[in-house]
């Protein structure tokens, strides 16, 4: 059975267990608990799509829950619309709200996004108060209970809640296994690296937010009919809603569809049972016991029960596969044929008068050079010369203050990093930016999605790229198990999986042993033959002079020299930049002698 099919079988099993419980229990109170388990699991799953997968922690997710509840109930109260249709209105309103909230709020990164989302449910509460909807009762429709979601039989609510839970599980599963899911996980791990691998992070986050608003709205509508009967701002926009959501997700584990389900299945019955047993005798004690249980889970499994159990389980697995020796074959471009080369030596990338300043520090001033098709261009310079800043301008991380970058003759200045990646410029990073919780194969798949929409095709492409780097045996590991050399190779594979025509390599040899330098250099040297042009920043000059066809020297943001490696490293201006004026003064004479010796036939 394929992994994909297994996921749906597991969901079917959950539904089966839900059905057995629905028809197995008899007490009305137990049915209420079961409905709540299904509803909070759904709400947790909704939150998990934006916060678990994409890592954009939403502290205001009850906004959508409340919108779903209010819109559905108001449509019934004012327009006599049946909740089955009203709910669709609620979902529409919630998705619209997600777009309106997301558009400004996704500009904020990390914790600031989370803090900003706190505001929205508060706003909705105030608006509801202002409009006079402090209490909206669901109009009683005893003649047609089914049509108006007012069932006498508690099993009907169980089934309804189970139905939306199953739908949300399927939705989560679809997200997890789709291109969107991989992109979201990459964004969560490292948004900049994801952008550089061609992921449109804003759009992906927005889709995730919309997808997570919809089930939250449905859960809110069903909660109003099954539990509340009278909708108040406090009950649906209140802080307890998000607390309950976070509890089930954090206990069960975020970033997986099983986490919220496990969390709800444990915490909801515990809290309800405590309320009904201890709450009578010692009012307030149920909160203390609940809190203690929560703390115990957090201490034992801070990432959630699902991940804890999984890591214990996989810890029993056998030793990881050993690395195979890299087969020095570079051509990943074989999956899609390399575009027809431009006239040999024609400029692929033209850099014209780029300047960039940070708070008065002139990081780059008036930098101009060409990268020619099929060459390996080395960019060198002393510490602080502006080399990495230059790459950040070229791949779109930074907007230059002045100047222009042209790619295949067309300007690309001002394009987003993912757009530049799609046009065929890949890059790697000085400090490696891997996605630590994705496997090696999934890391490379993120790059492969630039050219392949379907996960299976992207996986094949990633496997191909990894095999060429000799990392075939490492595909299923997480990157923490890799050596520096393997990580650098993996980053290169991820970059090549985007099928670039130009790769920007930022210190690919840093921290490698001499064997590693040799291997990595041989990989890079094969790039032009495979139709990939290389621009490389490197400090290890010994390797660089052997590797590069041409060198561009930067010093304090200014272009200093350009030419063949042998010329550049003998250029007095370059020697001065590296070793100082006074060294040059001392050694200019000897330098002449060395050169004369070298040029003797």
């Amino acid at each position, binding site marked *: 059975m394929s992994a994909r099919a297994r996921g749906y079988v597991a969901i079917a099993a959950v539904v089966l267990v839900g059905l057995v419980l629905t028809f197995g229990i008899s007490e009305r109170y137990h049915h209420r608990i079961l409905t709540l388990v299904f509803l909070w699991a759904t709400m947790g799953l909704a939150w998990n799509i934006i916060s678990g997968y994409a890592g954009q922690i939403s502290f205001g997710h009850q906004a959508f829950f409340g919108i779903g509840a209010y819109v559905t109930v108001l449509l019934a109260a004012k327009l006599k619309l049946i909740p089955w249709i009203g709910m669709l209105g609620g979902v529409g309103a919630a998705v619209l709200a997600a777009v309106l909230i997301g558009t400004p709020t996704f500009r904020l990164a990390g914790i600031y996004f989370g803090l900003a989302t706190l505001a929205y449910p508060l706003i909705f509460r105030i608006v509801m108060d202002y409009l006079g909807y402090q209490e909206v009762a669901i109009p009683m429709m005893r003649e047609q209970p089914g049509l108006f979601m007012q069932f006498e039989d508690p099993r009907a609510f169980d089934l309804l809640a189970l139905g939306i839970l199953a739908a949300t599980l399927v939705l989560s599963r679809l997200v997890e296994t789709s291109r969107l899911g991989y992109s979201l996980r990459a964004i969560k791990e490292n948004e900049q690296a994801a952008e550089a691998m061609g992921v449109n992070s804003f759009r992906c986050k927005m889709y995730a937010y919309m997808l997570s608003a919809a089930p939250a709205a449905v859960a809110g509508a069903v909660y109003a009919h099954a539990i509340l009967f009278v909708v108040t701002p406090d009950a649906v926009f209140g802080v307890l809603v998000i607390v309950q959501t976070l509890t089930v997700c954090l206990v069960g584990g975020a970033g997986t569809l099983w986490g919220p389900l496990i969390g709800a299945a444990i915490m909801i019955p515990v809290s309800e049972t405590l309320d009904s047993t201890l709450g009578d005798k010692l009012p307030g004690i149920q909160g203390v016991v609940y809190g203690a249980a929560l703390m115990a889970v957090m201490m034992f499994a801070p990432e959630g029960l699902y991940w804890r159990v999984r890591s214990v389980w996989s810890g029993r697995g056998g030793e990881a596969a050993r690395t195979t020796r890299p087969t020095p074959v570079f051509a990943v471009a074989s999956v899609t044929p390399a575009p027809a080369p431009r006239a040999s030596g024609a400029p692929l990338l033209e850099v014209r008068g780029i300047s960039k300043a940070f708070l008065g520090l002139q990081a780059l001033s008036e930098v101009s050079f060409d990268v020619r098709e099929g060459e390996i261009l080395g960019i060198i310079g002393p510490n602080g010369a502006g080399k990495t800043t230059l790459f950040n301008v070229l791949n779109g991380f930074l907007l230059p203050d002045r100047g222009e970058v042209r790619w295949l003759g067309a300007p690309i200045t001002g394009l987003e990093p993912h757009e530049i990646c799609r046009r065929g410029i890949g890059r790697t990073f000085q400090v490696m930016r891997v996605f630590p919780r994705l496997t090696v194969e999934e890391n490379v798949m993120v790059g492969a999605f630039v050219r392949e929409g379907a996960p299976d095709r992207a996986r094949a492409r990633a496997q191909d790229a990894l095999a060429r780097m000799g990392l075939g045996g490492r595909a299923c590991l997480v990157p923490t198990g890799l050596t520096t050399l393997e990580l650098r190779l993996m980053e290169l594979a991820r970059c090549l999986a985007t099928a670039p025509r130009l790769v920007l390599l930022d*210190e690919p040899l840093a921290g490698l042993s001499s064997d590693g330098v040799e291997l990595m250099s041989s990989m890079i040297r094969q790039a032009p033959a495979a139709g990939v042009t290389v621009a490389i920043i490197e400090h290890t000059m010994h390797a660089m002079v052997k590797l590069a066809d041409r060198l561009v020297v930067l010093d304090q943001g200014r272009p200093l020299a350009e030419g063949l490696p042998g010329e550049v490293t003998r250029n007095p201006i370059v020697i001065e930049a590296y*070793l100082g004026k006074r060294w040059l003064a001392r050694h200019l004479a000897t330098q002449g002698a060395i050169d004369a010796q070298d040029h003797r036939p």
Partner: protein
Amino acid sequence: MLKITGLSVAYGGLHALEDVSLEVAEGEFVTIVGPNGAGKTTLLRAISGSVRSGAGRLEFRGRDMTPLAAHQRAALGIAHVPEGRRIFPTLTVLENLELGSYRRGARAQRGPGLEAVLTVFPVLRARRQQLAGSLSGGEQQMLALGRGLMAQPDLLLLDEPSQGLGPRIVEQIFETIDQIRKSRRLTILLVEQRVVEALELCDRGYVLETGRVVLAGAHDALLADPRVQRAYLGV
């Protein structure tokens, strides 16, 4: 005073130093030069104990200090003036200096020590109530040096004091280092990219390249050796 044998340091598989051996005698001024990424900073960090060494042995005055933690090494009389200065910008100049004398042996001599530092760096005396963050780059470097001296060290580790400073200021800083050394009988281990300035001041030097010592010798011999250039430029 300091003897390092076969030191290797790796950060998560990244080889920063490989089999480095060097010695610094009591009262000596030794400089380590080398291009960016050669492992100079890592070497100083390994000596002061802020990174763990993978293999090798570090001896200080004949005593094996390899297993000692950073604060224990500081207690032996090793002061590290780190790269990028790392002063406390929201504290005053005086508070920064006083924090330098935190170590037990130095606390007793805080008063005279402070007076001595303020004499060496008159500009710090003038600005002693100012927030350290408001100082210029050169002044901040002097403060970092002064803070290191407040610990009354026997061995001073200096990491790139010239970094990010204009040539005139650099000259001034190097002059001060020379002056301190002559007046205090300090042992100094300096790490620098500015080859000539650093080598001219010192007694002996080492050239580090991609984590290995590739050249060693007296300062005038290194200054005359074209192979130093090879370490920087590859040819």
